[in-house]
């Protein structure tokens, strides 16, 4: 059974003049237990809106959102934001412990558990300083630790690494993969970067421009760590780039897409690189 299931989710906002801006139309999406799904799409297409809906911060105008077979609730979904969103008045340790206090855990237990999660992101020795004393990458790690400490079965990540330099981003990507492989949570990860999606995802979901609908899904059953200079990734990078760049006629497009993908796959032993689905 899917851990996350979105069915026919729609969302509109109202613009300055009261006009309706359709942001999401008929989004159907499933993420399984232990699956890492990356959401790619042009800026402003509605990726954050979609994540906010799954997190329960926004309610959809229509459609259903089920996590673990139940309507959304904060105890099953954790979210990591692009800019961290840490509490400046709490120490790093207490930032991580915050969610546990809220859940009713005692101060001492919560701090002990928070420590353990800080260790996982290698920030143990920074426990007693305040967020502004950390670098951007460290803050992002604290944000991840704070979400993981709550141990939600499902993680939402909204461009968590996009504000970081390449080296730090690489490191955090590795750390995240490591933690994910240990905990086997379902992850829905928004990114602008095709490269990032190829490095991380079991499946890449490509959204169209606003109003967002699912344009393509690509499955990447390749082992990690991945070398993006290798053939399947070079190929998919090109494909995703062209998918991003232009809107083509769906029918015609998907035919060539399948053909080229298949011819590429043949070179790879025992790898079935995709499930193409044009919507």
């Amino acid at each position: 059974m899917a851990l996350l299931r979105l069915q026919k989710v729609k969302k509109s906002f109202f613009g300055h003049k009261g006009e309706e801006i359709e942001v999401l139309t008929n989004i159907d999406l499933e993420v399984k237990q232990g699956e890492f799904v990356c959401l790619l799409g042009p800026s402003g297409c509605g990726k954050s809106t979609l994540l906010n809906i799954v997190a329960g911060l926004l309610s959809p105008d229509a459609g259903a959102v089920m996590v673990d077979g139940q309507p959304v609730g904060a105890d099953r979904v954790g979210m990591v934001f692009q800019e961290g969103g840490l509490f400046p008045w709490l120490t790093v340790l207490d930032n991580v412990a915050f969610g546990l206090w809220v859940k009713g855990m005692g101060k001492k237990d919560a701090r002990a558990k928070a420590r353990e999660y800080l260790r996982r992101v290698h920030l143990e020795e920074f426990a007693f300083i305040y967020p502004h004393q950390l670098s951007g990458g460290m803050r992002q790690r604290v944000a991840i630790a704070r979400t993981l400490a709550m141990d939600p079965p499902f993680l939402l990540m909204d461009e968590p690494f996009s504000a970081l330099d390449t080296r730090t981003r690489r490191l955090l990507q590795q750390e995240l993969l490591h933690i994910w492989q240990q905990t086997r949570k379902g992850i829905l990860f928004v990114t602008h970067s095709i490269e990032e999606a190829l490095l991380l995802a079991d499946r890449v979901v490509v959204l169209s421009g606003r109003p967002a609908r699912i344009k393509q899904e690509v499955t990447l059953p390749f082992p990690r760590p991945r070398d993006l200079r290798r053939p399947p990734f070079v190929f998919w990078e090109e494909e995703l780039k062209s998918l991003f760049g232009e809107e083509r006629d769906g029918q015609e497009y998907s035919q060539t897409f399948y053909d080229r993908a298949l011819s590429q796959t043949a070179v790879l032993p025992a790898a079935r690189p995709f499930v193409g689905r044009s919507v």
Partner: protein
Amino acid sequence: MLLPAPSDVLLTLVQGLKEGTLLLAFFSSLRRILVSFTLALTLGITGGLMLGRIFWLDRLLGSLIIALQSIPSVVWLPLALLWFGMGEGAIIFITSLGATWTMIINTGAGVKRIPPLIIKAAQTMGVSRLQLFTRVIVPASVPAILTGMRLAWAFAWRALMAGELLSSGTGLGQVLMMGRNLADMSQILAVMVIIGATGVAVDGFIFRRLEERVHRRWGLTG
């Protein structure tokens, strides 16, 4: 003679403190301002938190409060004297008033400036409405509340002196008026020195320190 010699003022000051008349006046004023300030903080922070979070309330009362804040508190004195009589009540009323509006405005502005991301993050961690308020909204507004307290203190101190000048009792303002009646300029100046020094000392030793500490912790200063 326009002004007394500084040595005379110093002498009066030392004598007044020794004899206890000035000291008594000082403590009488201090008591009043502590009562008023506590009142203003309680009302102002509560009001500001409500205004910052409740949209329609802000729409309804926001500009009225800004208008009220621009009225010097001492203008309320005649009305306060009619309501409370010539006593403590009237003075405490006008002293609290000026500080209260400032506290409401500053706290409210602080609440509205809380980054939505912080609130969203707390919500994804499952805070209840009450927890959101006590564990996020209130602590997140602390810098703004402290700034408000500094301003409110200055307003309250001014209002208190004005009130005491114009009514009866035993505060510093009243000793000031007594000096005028006795044409004792060195007494007047001695009291003025105390008033100024108290204002500066409280601001510098209490509020500025608190504010600096919070700003350092939050990384709001360089």
